[in-house]
């Protein structure tokens, strides 16, 4: 399945950036090129210090790349003067890890802040602000100050403010990293809603694989200023190619592979992975039919990444070795990926 569109809404071309100079220069972004397609939710994941937040800031030029170009919605931002850039930035929303709301303004006035820049009438500003508050479910808190709100509520205000200029793009800088799991889930659901209903393209940066798993269509993995791997979320999470990706996945994976229970019971232990179309088939029972091979599932996960169903299991096969080999062959014919002890 290919993603619709194909024209990059955000195009980063050969960006480089370093801080400091001479001997102390630190390269934060090292020749990064990437494209974000209109309508998608794109994630950039990496350990802290990988350069992902700086990369995100390059999109609206809060951080200026030393070289390379940034194009958003067909406009090459890196060529604009200050005034033109300010005008373009109004079409790019941004939310932050620490929300960055004005502490001296009420929730409504925070949302109204970007509206005031557009020279709308007082009534129009108020109407739009209330509309935005309603959309993020914060109408009841319109007259409260940020200090009176919880983290999740503040982020909702941040989202409403970011959407005030009816942006095509929303940049999210670790938007859920300061929130607990429950709140993270609700904020992610809101972001997904905004993506679907308003068609806002979302580029987000996170160190949490769960965020990527939950809402990203595509993902890029960053390490030491470079994008080391990128692709569709399901592909990348199920078949990580780069050590950095595996390292990120290890954070959330069940540490015991289920192997312990099967180690001295004999038989052949295999690990299988299936996804997409092959997930719906009774492949395992088909594979052992007509043989004397028996199977025990030692450990497994059956789930879905975005719209891709998948399963990952550790299985013990017992039976004559010739038959076991043919069972493994049949599983592979069904499109299953099988890791056998030799490979392990």
């Amino acid at each position, binding site marked *: 399945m290919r993603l619709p569109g194909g024209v990059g809404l955000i195009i980063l071309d050969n960006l480089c950036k370093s801080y400091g100079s001479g001997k102390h220069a630190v390269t934060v972004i090292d020749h990064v090129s990437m494209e974000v397609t209109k309508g998608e939710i794109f994630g950039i994941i990496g350990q802290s210090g990988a350069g992902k937040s700086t990369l995100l800031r390059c999109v*609206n030029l*809060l951080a200026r790349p030393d070289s390379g170009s940034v194009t958003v919605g067909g406009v090459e931002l890196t060529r604009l003067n200050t*005034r033109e*850039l*300010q*005008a*373009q*930035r*109004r079409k*790019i929303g*941004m939310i*932050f890890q*620490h929300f*960055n*709301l*004005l*502490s*001296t*303004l009420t929730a409504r006035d925070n949302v109204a*802040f*970007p509206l005031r*820049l557009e020279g709308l009438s007082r009534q129009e500003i108020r109407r739009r602000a209330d509309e935005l508050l309603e959309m993020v479910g914060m109408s009841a808190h319109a007259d409260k*100050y*940020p*200090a*009176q709100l919880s983290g999740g509520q503040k982020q909702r205000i941040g989202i409403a*403010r970011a959407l005030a*200029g009816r942006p095509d793009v929303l*940049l999210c800088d670790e938007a859920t990293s300061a929130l607990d799991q429950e709140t993270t889930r609700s904020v992610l659901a809101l972001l997904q809603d905004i993506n679907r209903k308003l068609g806002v393209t979302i580029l987000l940066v996170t160190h949490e694989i769960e965020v990527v798993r939950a809402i990203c269509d595509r993902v890029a993995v960053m390490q030491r200023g470079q994008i080391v791997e990128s692709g569709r979320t399901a592909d990348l999470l199920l078949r990580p190619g780069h050590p950095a990706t595996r390292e990120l996945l290890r954070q959330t994976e069940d540490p015991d592979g289920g192997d312990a229970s099967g180690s001295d019971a004999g038989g052949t232990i295999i690990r299988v992975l299936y996804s997409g179309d092959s997930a719906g088939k009774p492949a395992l029972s088909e594979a052992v039919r007509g043989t004397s091979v028996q199977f025990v599932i030692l450990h497994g996960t059956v789930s879905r990444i975005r719209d891709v169903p998948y399963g990952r299991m550790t299985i013990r096969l017992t039976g004559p070795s010739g038959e076991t080999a043919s069972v493994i062959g049949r599983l592979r014919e069904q499109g299953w990926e099988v890791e056998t002890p030799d490979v392990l």
Partner: protein
Amino acid sequence: MSYDEIPWPIIWQAARETLVMLGASLALSVPIGLVIGVLVFLTSPGQFWQQIWVNRLLSLIVNVTRSVPFVIMMIYVMPITRWLVGTSIGMKGAIPPLVIAAAPFFARMTEIALREVDRGVIEAAEAMGTPRLLIIWRVLLREARTGLIAGVTVTAVNLVSYTAMSGVIGGGGLGDLAIRYGYQRFRSDVMLVTVVLLVILVQLLQSFGDRLVQRLSRNP
């Protein structure tokens, strides 16, 4: 020495002079100091008008002015005073040196207050495409307002003590009265009255400032 010998009309006259000097110099020092403070802050490394040399120069001027004792400053700036207001003595002549002393002080207070503003909030405003002058006005000064008011209060209290020294150039005021009557004529009753009045003035300024800060604070 009895109570009714206290020269009340002279004391009220001096009190009025103190208030005029305080009001005029504060009214001038605050905007001047605010502009200098904002410039010092915005030209410092990492801010959007980053200009290391402008920053160092401004900072140096602020520091030099602040390190000259007021009594000396008053005499030192006399040519400037004369050029500005046509005289270097009297209440009128006292106002320029008061401003020259208090504005850099308030500039430093302003800079400190602005440093307290969350960098992320400025970044958010930039990300929204806010023009820089509006960032200064609607974000920086607004978010720093309690610190700024606290700075005005401290500056005002400082000015009260500066005005006491303006007697040297015939500036008048309560401090001057305390020296001329209380010290030179051994009228300790007049001395006491002026000191009490000065204490009351400082108390009023401080509590007014504190109350304003409290009312405008949005961080419980």
